[in-house]
């Protein structure tokens, strides 16, 4: 009798331990939820809109963006996203995807770049900008980041981006690194990738533009970075500002060799 009791106790503990193994971690459950969302990613809608906008004749000059040089020659879209931000000889500036699009919209289509910069996110021409960025990023989906650091300006931007990433300030004395400088941390249900090193395939820099299910908005990198500053209780550095481009260079170079999953889907 005592024997069977002991045996059943062993059986019980064995059961309990398998149950503990089968229990999913919070991170796994979140991953599962994201996988379920993945199939119907509304980013597809923005992608289609972006492709149309690229080919559509618009603006005072009634021109399309098909001659826009994103770094791989006029009109070459495939693979351009994973090499941006980079130095452009014609503007003599380091530019990310959105600031480069701004140049093209001004030079090719005759749109007022200063006016677009002033437009709040999610309004008017900014919506078109996001759709274009979504489509262009989708054309490089699965490709690996490979940012150039050959030009001195690109090296400078990397160093500036790094300084900005660690610069603390504001009423909360926050820096980007306060949240993104450690492994395995979370804010509510969102993983916080450690962006001071390569966070891996499809994480951090490699996951934007993304559609956010909770607010039904499509965000590209410029909005992501500017909103990070808002969360730090800083004013926006501004659309296509050198500060955001420098941060983009820092994050992009750190992500060297990681595959882009953009356009991604977020909670």
């Amino acid at each position, binding site marked *: 009798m005592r024997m069977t009791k002991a045996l059943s106790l062993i059986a019980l503990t064995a059961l309990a331990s398998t149950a503990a193994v089968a229990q999913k971690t919070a991170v796994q459950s979140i991953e599962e939820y994201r996988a379920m969302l993945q*199939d*119907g990613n*509304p980013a597809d*809608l923005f992608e289609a809109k972006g492709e149309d906008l690229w080919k559509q004749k618009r603006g005072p000059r009634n021109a399309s963006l098909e001659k826009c040089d994103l770094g791989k020659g006029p009109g070459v879209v495939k693979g351009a996203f994973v090499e941006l931000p980079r130095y452009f000889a014609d503007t003599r500036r380091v530019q990310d995807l959105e600031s480069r699009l701004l140049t093209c919209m001004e030079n090719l289509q005759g749109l007022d770049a200063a006016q677009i910069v002033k437009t709040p996110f999610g309004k008017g021409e900014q919506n078109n900008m996001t759709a274009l960025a979504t489509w262009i990023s989708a054309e490089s989906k699965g490709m690996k980041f490979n940012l150039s650091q050959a030009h001195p300006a690109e090296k400078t931007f990397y160093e500036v981006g790094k300084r900005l990433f660690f610069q603390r300030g504001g009423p909360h004395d926050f820096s980007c690194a306060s949240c993104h400088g450690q492994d395995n941390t979370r804010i509510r249900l969102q993983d916080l990738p450690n962006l001071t090193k390569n966070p891996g395939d499809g994480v951090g820099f490699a996951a934007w533009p993304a559609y956010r299910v909770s607010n039904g908005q499509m965000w590209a990198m410029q909005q992501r970075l500017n909103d990070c500053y808002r969360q730090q209780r800083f004013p926006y550095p501004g659309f296509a500002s050198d500060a955001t481009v420098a941060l983009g260079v820092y994050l992009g170079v750190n992500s060297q060799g990681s595959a882009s999953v953009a356009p991604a889907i977020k909670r």
Partner: protein
Amino acid sequence: MADPMRIRAQAAGDKATVRVLMSHEMESGQRKDAAGKTVPAWFIQEVEAKLNGKSVMTAEWGPAVSKNPFLQFTVKGAKAGDKIAVTWKDNKGETRTDEASVS
């Protein structure tokens, strides 16, 4: 003019799985804007799917459906090359139809 839908339909055996992504604000009528005024309701009310012109599914939707809704369903007897058409109509009377062929 509403933005186009994305429709994908894939045949497997005697069934086809149809995935539809619609572009719509789906405003519930419960939200207020920055000025404190109610944002008027604006949502899809009727959805109809047709296989080669014959109605195979109708649905009545309400304000609880999310923005940019995703709809998935299976159609019996759909083969590769068949035409799937999806129509929605919202409470403002606006409507949109898009078509895709089963692959």
